[in-house]
């Protein structure tokens, strides 16, 4: 999976669509018996490993699921507090899945809004008049590509730094947006996109883009 995520930001900087297209690489699921030899703590509304790193369970990893059922922040899916649950020997043996905590939707909203503001810095810093905003942001683990339309909507794709063809993927996403979001008469402009056809066609486009990348088909 070389394309990690897609974000669509409206003209006011609000996140109207987000898709994560990757499976986190480092997730570990293990069965434990009482008492737990990891030290857990609450951090940012999540239960994370504070100490006791072992095997592939690292400090900072959050509890993602218990006994196969996804955890909701500091609560299990059926509303019990995770720390309380794990403190009770009656609930053992228990199978816990640890991994890097994913961004919550609120965090994504904030980050998109922040990016929207930063985007303009590109054109302000430029020695030339009429420069575009930030088009690419690179780190050692991913490249962020941004395409802003003439109407002010931004399409953002996070991909593997080696993945090619993102420019044409961005244009394709614009087409998919103009077809399956805008041509849906019940979709209101600037609002979150909740169109099934948009989802489907976007996922298809991502798969096509990944196959034509440097990793080749079948990767």
């Amino acid at each position: 999976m070389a394309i990690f995520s897609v974000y669509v930001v409206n003209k006011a900087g609000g996140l109207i669509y987000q898709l994560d297209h990757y499976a986190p690489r480092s997730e570990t699921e293990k069965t434990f018996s009482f008492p737990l030899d990891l030290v857990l703590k609450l951090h940012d509304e999540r239960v994370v490993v504070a100490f006791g790193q072992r095997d592939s369970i690292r400090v900072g990893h959050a509890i993602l699921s218990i006994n196969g059922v996804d955890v909701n922040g500091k609560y299990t899916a059926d509303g019990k507090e995770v720390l309380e649950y794990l403190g009770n020997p009656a609930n053992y043996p228990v199978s816990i899945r640890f991994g890097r905590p994913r961004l919550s939707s609120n965090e994504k909203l904030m980050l998109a809004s922040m990016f929207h503001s930063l985007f303009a810095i590109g054109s302000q810093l430029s020695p030339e008049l009429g420069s575009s905003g930030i088009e690419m942001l690179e780190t050692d683990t991913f490249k962020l590509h941004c395409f802003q339309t003439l109407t002010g909507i931004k399409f953002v794709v996070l991909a593997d730094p080696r993945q090619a063809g993102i420019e044409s993927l961005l244009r394709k996403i614009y087409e998919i947006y103009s077809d399956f979001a805008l041509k849906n008469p019940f979709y209101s402009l600037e609002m979150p996109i909740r169109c099934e056809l948009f989802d489907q066609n976007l996922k298809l486009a991502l798969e096509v883009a990944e196959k034509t990348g440097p990793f080749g088909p079948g990767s």
Partner: protein
Amino acid sequence: GCCNSCRRELFVLTYGALVAQLCKDYEKDEDVNKYLDRMGYDIGIRLVEDFLARSAVKKCRSYSETVDMIAQVAFKMYLGITPSVSRSNTTENEFFLILENNPLVDFVEELPAGRTSLCYCNILCGVIRGALEMVHLAAEVNFIQDRLKGDDFTEIGITFLKKLEDKKHKRNK
């Protein structure tokens, strides 16, 4: 081919049905014109993205470039016609599109009695106005002349108003 012309027939018929229904719903020509314009606006704000996504045009740097783009690329793409463009020598920022032929009125002979102020194709004005607004250009768009009303030409006037200001940080569009 055949499929395309059937599609066009359906489109022209649909538009005709729309105008006819509005005429039944509203007595005053001004009201029909207003609703056609409003519908056109709702179409224009969406159609502009389809246009930009498919035509991959670069940003226009002047009003005249913009009007040329509308006439030569957009009209061609969606209606298969290319209106000619001219510019007013009296009013600043006023342009005209002269429509030689117009598929929307292919089957319309003349306006019905009592409907002398009806702008049959007023939807086009709304479409242009909505599309321009999405690229931050405010404009007034209306029919200056209309063959259906007995004029010699069918002419749409586009008058650009003061440029819509972006929010403070977005100098780039």
